[in-house]
């Protein structure tokens, strides 16, 4: 079986309220060295298939259609083999 690991991040030039808020909170917590914070999503999708090529094509479609909103977000993904449980 394959597992797709998908990273969705807010585009570099889009102001990210969550990242800014966390950065502010880190400063307040006493970490002034945290000078740039970006927050995104990390998704793990187990796929009932072993065909890497096919899987990659499908995950790409999933990302474009659903997992990321490409107006504001970028995405990338990796496929890893998992051992059958």
């Amino acid at each position, binding site marked *: 079986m394959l597992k797709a690991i998908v990273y969705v991040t*807010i585009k570099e030039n*889009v*102001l990210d*309220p*969550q990242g800014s808020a966390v950065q502010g909170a880190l400063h307040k917590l006493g970490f002034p060295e945290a000078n740039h914070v970006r927050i995104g999503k990390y998704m793990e999708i187990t796929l009932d298939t072993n065909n890497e090529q096919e899987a990659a094509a499908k995950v790409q479609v999933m990302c474009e259609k*659903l*997992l990321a*909103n490409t*107006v*504001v977000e970028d995405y990338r993904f990796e496929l890893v083999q998992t051992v059958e449980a």
Partner: protein
Amino acid sequence: MRTAVLVFPGSNCDVDCYKAIEQTLGTPVEYVWHQETSLDGFDLILVPGGFSYGDYLRCGAIARFAPVMDAVKVAVERGAFVLGVCNGFQILLESGLLPGAMRKNTSLKFICQPQMLRVARNDLAFTAEYAVGEEINVPIAHGEGNYYCDEATLEELKANNQIVFTYAGTNPNGSVADIAGITNKQGNVVGMMPHPERAVSELLGSDGGKRMFTSVLNAWRERNGAVIG
């Protein structure tokens, strides 16, 4: 004028939209389930607020794939009036019927409060009974109403006069150019974060949203040359 109120799993303001039509217009109104594939015969389509699919992943991201959204696209093509409020606006953005995307409010908090809006244009079916520059009280209630679009899109929105409402006073959520609501180029699709359906009676604190409904009814009448509806 026949109105459809779409119902997605997790829609909450469907009831409020329905009541607003019933009470302010008294025209026929029906709930339409997200699995329906046709909106034929409906003149006004309300995409209500709420938390479709729990707003999980992104607001409106999952609802956009409901069969009824294909029907909405068809209806938009034929010129039906479409109003998306709050989550409905988010769904219209996600489905590409309106440009842009939503981010979390800058405060990262859900905000529910009375809100003053400035009407930017009154040549639309939805806003004809307001004056340009008029300030109206229409409440907001959202966690992700921080409208975003890139520079080019903003220029285009401005050039085409697609901004319908802006926040008066302090911008509550950080939206680009204080945008509270926009329309498509044709002017028959409006998306807005504030809730006009919650502002149709002084008993509830404001009737600032009422004229959006009476306006669209008039527009429909004019379009159809009808006397009653």
